[in-house]
């Protein structure tokens, strides 16, 4: 893990590594899609609508995890000036943003047939929308402010403030009356979701996770090359 703090390591990863990572995540996602769209059973209440969950839930998990990682990276980079963390956070942002959009849109598609509405202002949906905006603000800070050090500072503050929203999203369904159902999978209890539906969900999560890793590594490499181009690479020790 510590090796990752050494910038050169990313350039030691061969093209072969990326090639195989791509093959692996694509095959896991295809396998997961077959499992979730064809093999897994219908739900006893929702029917086929349940299949939206296999995309919605992994995307939501990843968007929360990625923002948490960005928040932690921003704390480290802001306090200890370990700049490589800034680059981690910056590289992660568009990935998490995409997943949060997928989560909101698929959720909305699921909500129409299930609840009877595309959108409603309950605590879970509203806080999730807020997360989408935090991602947008974070990315905008980097695009609008040209000075690296200024945008590093402001984007880090945005990520740290946004970090407070993460537990709100997670626990909104327990703290308040919401239309959104509580979590089916909890660390302390056995899942309220049948094994034949849990398997495709976890396979999809693994596939999405590896996809996120793949894009992250590519973006991380690009960001470092950009710094080199701007003659800023000496800030990364």
């Amino acid at each position, binding site marked *: 893990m510590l090796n990752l703090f050494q910038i050169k390591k990313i350039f030691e990863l061969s093209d072969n590594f990326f090639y195989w990572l791509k093959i692996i995540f694509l095959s896991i996602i295809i396998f997961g899609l077959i499992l979730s769209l064809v093999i897994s059973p*219908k739900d006893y209440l929702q029917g086929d609508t349940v299949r939206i969950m296999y995309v919605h839930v992994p995307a939501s998990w990843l968007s929360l995890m990625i923002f948490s990682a960005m928040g932690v990276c921003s704390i480290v980079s*802001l306090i*200890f000036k370990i700049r490589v963390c800034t680059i981690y956070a910056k590289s992660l942002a568009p990935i998490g943003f995409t997943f949060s959009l997928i989560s909101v849109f698929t959720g909305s598609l699921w909500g129409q047939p299930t609840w009877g*509405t595309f959108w409603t202002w309950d605590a879970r949906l509203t806080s999730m929308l807020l997360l989408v905006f935090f991602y947008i603000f974070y990315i905008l800070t980097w695009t609008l402010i040209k000075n690296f050090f200024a945008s590093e500072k402001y984007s880090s503050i945005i990520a740290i403030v946004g970090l407070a929203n993460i537990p709100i999203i997670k626990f909104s369904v327990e703290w308040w009356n919401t239309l959104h159902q509580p979590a089916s999978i909890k660390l302390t209890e056995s899942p309220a979701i049948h094994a034949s*539906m849990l398997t495709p969900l976890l396979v999809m999560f693994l596939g999405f996770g590896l996809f996120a890793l793949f894009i992250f590594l590519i973006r991380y490499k690009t960001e470092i090359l950009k710094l080199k181009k701007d003659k800023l690479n000496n800030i990364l020790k």
Partner: protein
Amino acid sequence: MSPASKKRLNYFLISIIVFLIVGKFVLNSLQGNTVYFFSPSDLSKLNEKPNGLVRIGGLVKSDSIQKKQKDNIYTFVITDLTNDVYVEYKGILPNLFQEGKGAVIEGVLKDKKFLIAEKILAKHDENYMPPEVADALKKSGTWNKTYGK
């Protein structure tokens, strides 16, 4: 750790503490405002009936859905097992709206026990299972009432 880092860390920790305290107060005061819906018991505790649109959430009481012959007028009872609210609704019921399951009803209160619904949202719970499993559970008698009818 360099002195500058230490200083920044201290600022950071202090602002976290301040933030947590403020957040606690904000959450406490929000508690009353962020209810997406009232339960029938919440409603019965209110002194006056709320005006305008309100949302009532709870279970649809078993054997309470009735359809009036003309138009698509349905009446049913929303319960939280201690208090009931009677609901009248004109329109098409969502697919997942069934007796024994959760629902959120948006509408105008005629009085504290009677709601004219404008919109019905079916609430889905966290249980997912294939129909065969549901049948098997019903047969073996281990069916949990909260799963629905």
